[in-house]
């Protein structure tokens, strides 16, 4: 993959403790899976950075290679790839996402 895009993605993940690559924005999601993950983070009151991959095709393709994961959305917490929609939903239901946030000292609504 293009080194500049790799660097750009790396910087986004470095600079933001909670980073969500999604289709659309938290206010206007463009895909049901992105909506679901964005809503979970909103529900938990987590401060997160969202990146709309529909605005940048290079990031859209790049993040799939970067994470070795073929779908959007993708969630990163403290540089760690957490997963896509199915995994995030399951982790939220089992409170594993909340534990992950706590372990990383990221505040959320308990």
């Amino acid at each position: 993959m293009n080194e500049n895009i790799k660097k750009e993605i790396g910087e986004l993940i470095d600079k933001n403790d909670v980073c969500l690559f999604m289709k659309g924005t938290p206010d206007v999601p463009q895909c049901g899976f992105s909506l679901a993950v964005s809503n979970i983070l909103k529900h938990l009151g987590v401060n997160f950075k969202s990146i709309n991959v529909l605005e940048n095709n290079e990031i859209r393709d790049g993040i799939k290679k970067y994470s070795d994961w073929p779908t959007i959305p993708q969630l990163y917490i403290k540089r760690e790839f957490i997963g896509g929609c199915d995994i995030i939903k399951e982790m939220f239901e089992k409170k594993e996402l909340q534990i992950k946030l706590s372990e990383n000292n990221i505040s959320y609504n308990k």
Partner: protein
Amino acid sequence: MSLKSEVIENLIKEAIPDAEIVINDLAGDENHYSATIKSKIFKGKSKIEQHKIVYKSLKGKMGNELHALSINTMEI
């Protein structure tokens, strides 16, 4: 772009021979599916690793011919 559920099932079965697979066509459009896959292969692996095994079995079709596949993996 669409993909028949039998094609998805066969691809998964090819990569994970012991898989018990249940596929639902969520919207009836051959484009939005959910799949529950049970296999011994998932034992001891993280959810990310488990889903990657399923994605790899689909040989690049995920995100291309196949728009949406909700995956639920289980160990047996």
